């Protein structure tokens, strides 16, 4: 499903060179739920960004759904992200000026789905995460846990095969965090979504199929 081969990511700023990832090779199978752990600054987010085509690797290659990503042109990447990937972020990143429903509709906007269909599917996604009652609200009127559910609804509204979640429970208290994790787990088992999740929580990692540990940009086992 996701294959990284000898991926290296180097950030160059003025004089400093930071090696965020070095020689990472990784395979994630279809339907797998993989957690990524590691100390702060070990390259977890970078790894997720490279998988999600939000960032280009300095070296190495990324293969999604059997298709190797050859060109990192804006329009081509946008299309793949839209069709195959769903993102969930630690800080939710909901658009404050859009209602819950409009936020969830965003991915469909970029594949040209008509207004009625968008609405229907966004409502279905919100129902899936248990938030049908809040569609007219704005993000600022929701609790953290509710906001993250909206973000998950947005990530799954386009029915992507891969969900990438960067510390999705990092800003939530542990009970709410567990709910969100259960939701991801449910999506994984019932909808056969492939999920890759960064987490700091050993308890959560234990609930996933497999844990990849990073240290200084390298996988350790």
């Amino acid at each position, binding site marked *: 499903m996701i294959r990284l081969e000898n991926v290296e990511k180097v950030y160059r700023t003025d004089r400093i060179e930071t090696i965020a990832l070095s020689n990472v090779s990784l395979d994630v199978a279809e339907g797998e739920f993989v957690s990524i752990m590691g100390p702060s600054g070990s390259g977890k987010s970078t790894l997720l*960004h490279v998988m*999600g085509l*939000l*960032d280009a690797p300095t070296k190495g290659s990324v293969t999604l759904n059997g298709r190797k990503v050859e060109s990192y042109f*804006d*329009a081509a990447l*946008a*299309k793949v*992200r*839209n*069709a195959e*990937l769903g*993102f969930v*972020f630690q*800080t939710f*990143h*909901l*658009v*404050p*000026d*859009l*209602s819950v429903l*409009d936020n969830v*509709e*965003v*991915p469909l*906007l*970029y*594949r040209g789905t008509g*207004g009625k269909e968008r609405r229907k599917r966004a409502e279905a996604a919100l129902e899936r995460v248990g938030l049908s009652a809040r569609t007219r609200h704005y993000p600022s009127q929701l609790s953290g846990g509710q906001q993250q559910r909206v973000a998950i609804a*947005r990530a799954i509204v*386009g029915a992507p095969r891969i969900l990438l979640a960067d510390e999705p429970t990092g800003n939530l208290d542990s009970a709410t965090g567990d709910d969100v994790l259960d939701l991801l787990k449910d999506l994984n088992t019932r909808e056969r979504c492939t999920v890759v999740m960064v987490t700091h929580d050993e308890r959560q990692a234990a609930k996933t199929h497999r844990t990849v540990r990073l240290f200084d940009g390298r996988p350790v086992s």
Partner: protein
Amino acid sequence: MLGHTLKSTVRVLLRRKFFTAVSLFGVALTLVVLVVAAALLDHTFGPHPPEVYSGRSLGIFRASLKGKSWTRNGGPGGRLLETCARALPGAEITSFYSAQDQEVTYRDGERVSLWVKRTDGAFWRALHFRFLEGGPFTDADDAAANAVAVVNDATRRKLFGDGRGVGKTLRLDGRTFTVVGVVADVPFLRAVPFADVWLPARTARSDAEARAWVGELRALIVARSRADLPGIREEYRRRVAAVDVSAEPRFDRLESEAESFLEMGARGMAGTSPHRAALAVAFFIALAVCFMALPALNLVNLALSRILERSSEVGVRKAFGATRWRLVLQFVTENVILSLAGGALGIVLSAGVLSAVNQSGLIPYAQLALNVRVLLWGLLATCVFGVLSGALPALRMSRLHPVEALQGGPR
């Protein structure tokens, strides 16, 4: 898509009320000034009755007698016009009239000051006044120096109250004139037709004007067609150059041109260059552009701050499949919506300002109007405004790397 953008735009603008107010006001104010300026120019130079032939008309407004150390500037005198401006080839109507002059009459012992023009009969054929009562005086009236007058509606009201004007008399310049016609008021800025009272030219007490090369007369020439205009200018220039003024002490040559009204108006700005009308128009356009540049820059700035604080949104939209151009389109649309709202406000305000100017009497008999042409230009300017001020920040923002955008903007 548009619906989505519209909703989010309204929300963004309402969230930042101060920014929105400043932007709206900036656009509106700029438009007000442009629309009022355009209305004034149109009011002064546009093709409005009574100047129904302005597309194929020329005027003779100035003449100079020049010598080695002396120059006498003024309008053309009667002698110059009779010698050079009669029966120019291609001319259909030729009218000579005097520049308006302020004269005084009395009503019930009270002083009433009036603008008076002395004209011939052709004047009324070259210009189509709207007669409310009676009609114009004729060439025969002028030839016989009949003491008849045409007055405008405002003067009729001033002198005769609510009653009819035709048949009433008024005393001017020591003579008693009988009113034969009443016309609708003509705006003060329409230099050619404007007056309060029009009298036959030959009723003037002195014939000094008729004998002068340089004086205070004007000529209005309506050509058979636009194509005849260059020939008329040329022939007039030729005839003026051929005039022998050696009999005049101190002077040895005469200068005068037939020109369009716009050229006359441009003289103050662009001098006597043959391209003065084009220069004046270019100057006004440049002025308008400069004038619009400031609020446009201001809008760019405001738009930039409004868009920059939304880097997380840019990141999210990119992560979910927005291309760069999709984002540019969104932000530009936002700005165009804002500018159009400002434009609408500006048009409403302009209408208010124009009607206030009309009613204030600041410009006598002003009929400044928000015409469709000015409106469309205003609308176009507004859209250009919106696109310009939105494009820069939108381009900058859309270039953001998605990860950087998610992490809070450009570094």
